[in-house]
């Protein structure tokens, strides 16, 4: 059973994508395939989480080759949580794209790309093999490349150049890092690496050196300061359905990998590594939020916020206590949902008002009360105002930090969340509360487009936002399930033995 369960998150999107490719020019068929695939993926992911939660870590040895020799897929709570949230986000973005993305783009492989991207994300989360991790990262990365450039408008191309180049560097670092790990330890299976690293013969210096490669590689992918520059340069350029998905998910996947490796494998010389994380996390938070505060474009504010929030997620790793890592995990899940939701909201605003520039927007509060409410919830979730979801992550991180005596970092994180509030209210003030300025030419065009579109457009665009908000409210107002999962996930992460035993069948 677990053999099937563990590959479903890979196979469902893969077969969905293949089916879409067979019906390359038939948009209607692709949409039907998309619905079926997304729903079944979500169901499979939910069941995977349920199974993982109730029976413990699940593994399958791909190709029936015993653990260090083949590739193992492993699902623990953290990974299955990631898989489930990516599925939820996938559904939301899929539904949004039905009307939120021009048909021209949809015709050029949008749906298969989206599915393959999800496959890549799931692969990263589920794999127990270092090189396989690289491969799945490349899958999701190339999907991101293509999606960001899909349509080839000028800003997209410009963003793509930076995105592609810097992420290529990241992949190279990752690959060199994997080479080093193999060159030092002679294995690629993460569980076996965990054993080897802890053995007496392990060369601490070299392994720590190798870990720097991974730190930089995943640091770039997760957009940690000072490696984040590609993100604000590119995330706001593609159409909103795409940027919502990428912005919501991809950096978190980088962070996931960071957490996975630095709790499982690179646990040596923590007196050197943790201070690095500490400094990077603080700087990431601050620089990110300052960037957000300075922006004047809806999506750019959101983009910079990703950086800032990544700082929070890194914070848990820097503190390295069960509570703090649980905080990071909670924060990752929360952020995936909220960030996607906010990007989708910006998309709805764009579809109805034709701009992303704060200056050119206004009056949404009066015209779209529902959207305003949704935005308030999402924005204040992001800002970490209780009882919304962001609070819990912040709380756990701060609690963990204080318990570990990292007062400075906790203070920074709290200060940063104040500026987060500021920039979220900036959007609220400008886009929702402010009086509506006269529409510009581009705005007029977009609005006209929207008006000629189907009457149900707006409602369909709202639907995914509402779904996400329901999820956000759920994990905020009734935080216990996710908090509990996060705590147990972090226990699993820190208690390496269970992972190793599950993979190597000891």
């Amino acid at each position, binding site marked *: 059973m677990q*053999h*099937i369960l563990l*590959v479903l998150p890979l*196979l469902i999107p*893969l*077969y969905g*994508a*293949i089916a879409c*490719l*067979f019906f*390359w020019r038939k948009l209607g068929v692709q949409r039907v395939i998309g619905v079926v695939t997304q729903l079944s993926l979500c169901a499979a992911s939910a069941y995977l989480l349920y199974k993982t939660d109730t029976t413990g870590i699940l593994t*399958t*040895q*791909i*190709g*029936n080759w015993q653990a260090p020799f083949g590739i193992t897929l492993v699902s623990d709570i953290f990974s299955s949580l990631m898989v489930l949230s990516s599925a939820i986000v996938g559904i939301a973005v899929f539904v949004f794209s039905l009307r939120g993305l021009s048909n021209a783009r949809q015709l050029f492989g949008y749906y298969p790309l989206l599915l393959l991207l999800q496959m890549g994300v799931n692969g990263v989360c589920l794999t127990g093999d270092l090189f396989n991790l690289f491969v799945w990262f490349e899958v999701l990365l190339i999907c991101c490349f293509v999606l960001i450039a899909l349509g080839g408008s000028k800003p997209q191309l410009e963003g793509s150049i930076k995105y592609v180049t810097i992420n290529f560097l990241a992949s190279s670092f990752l690959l060199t890092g994997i080479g080093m790990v193999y060159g030092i330890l002679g294995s690629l299976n993460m569980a076996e690496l965990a054993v080897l690293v802890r053995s007496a013969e392990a060369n601490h210096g070299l392994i720590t050196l190798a870990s720097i490669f991974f730190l930089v590689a995943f640091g770039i992918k997760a957009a940690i300061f000072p490696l984040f520059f590609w993100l604000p340069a590119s995330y706001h350029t593609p159409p909103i359905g795409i940027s919502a998905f990428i912005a919501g998910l991809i950096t978190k996947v980088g962070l996931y990998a960071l957490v996975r490796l630095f709790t499982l494998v690179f646990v040596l010389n923590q007196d050197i590594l943790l201070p690095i994380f500490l400094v990077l996390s603080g700087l990431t938070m601050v620089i990110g939020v300052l960037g957000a505060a300075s922006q004047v474009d809806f999506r750019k504010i959101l983009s910079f916020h990703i950086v800032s929030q990544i700082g929070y997620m890194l914070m848990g790793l820097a503190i390295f206590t069960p509570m703090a890592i649980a905080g990071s995990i909670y924060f990752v899940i929360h952020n995936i949902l909220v960030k996607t939701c906010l990007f989708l909201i910006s998309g709805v605003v764009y579809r109805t008002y034709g701009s992303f520039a704060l200056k050119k927007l206004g009056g949404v509060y009066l015209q779209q009360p529902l959207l305003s409410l949704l935005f308030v919830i999402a924005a204040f979730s992001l800002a970490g105002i209780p009882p919304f979801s962001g609070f819990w992550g912040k709380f756990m991180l701060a609690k963990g930090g204080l318990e570990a005596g990292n007062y400075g970092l906790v203070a920074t994180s709290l200060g940063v969340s104040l500026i987060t509030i500021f920039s979220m209210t900036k959007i609220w003030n400008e886009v929702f509360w402010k009086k509506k300025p006269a529409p510009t030419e581009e705005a007029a065009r977009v609005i006209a487009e929207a008006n000629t579109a189907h009457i149900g457009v707006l409602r369909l665009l709202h639907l995914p936002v509402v779904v996400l908000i329901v999820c956000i409210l759920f994990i905020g107002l009734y935080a216990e399930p996710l908090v509990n999962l996060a705590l147990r996930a972090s226990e699993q992460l820190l208690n390496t033995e269970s992972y190793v035993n599950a993979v190597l069948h000891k």
Partner: protein
Amino acid sequence: MKTLILAVAIRIFIPLFVIFSVYILFRGHNHPGGGFIGGLICAIAFIFHIMAHGPKDTAYTFFTIKYFRKAHQTGRSSVSSVLVLVYKNLFRKKELQAAPDWLPRQWRVDPIFIISCGLFLAATSGVFGLFLQQPYMSALWADMYLPVFGKPGTPILFDLGVYLLVLGVVLKITFVMAEE
């Protein structure tokens, strides 16, 4: 490039390349080669053709299935009528060319179709294991040995999928680039 010599040379090369690529594909399990290299070699054959004749010509020559179809097809296209269509086109092509109620049709095989076939084959080669309560990608081997083919098994199928996919990918890329 319109040069007679190249054109003729390429006409000779293409079957050579294709045969050789299949050979490389199947011997890959025991010697250097395999699906990826094989697929690339096969694709390179067509790249030569594209360079000599242009992408349109290549697509028409190698990736268009020309068939005949009954004119004024009334009613639903039932299974039997499809079978008739296939049969007539495969074995009675000469007849059809003369028949007035059968009109020539073309179906262009988009390389994306080849890509998806390859991906499907590669992915599906692993699914059989799942039905036998084994992990994904568990290899199943036949208990025999074929001369050129080697020992048949799902990994070979997997390699074949890779071959098709690589072929499709390179073709797609070069077609679209050459059309630019």
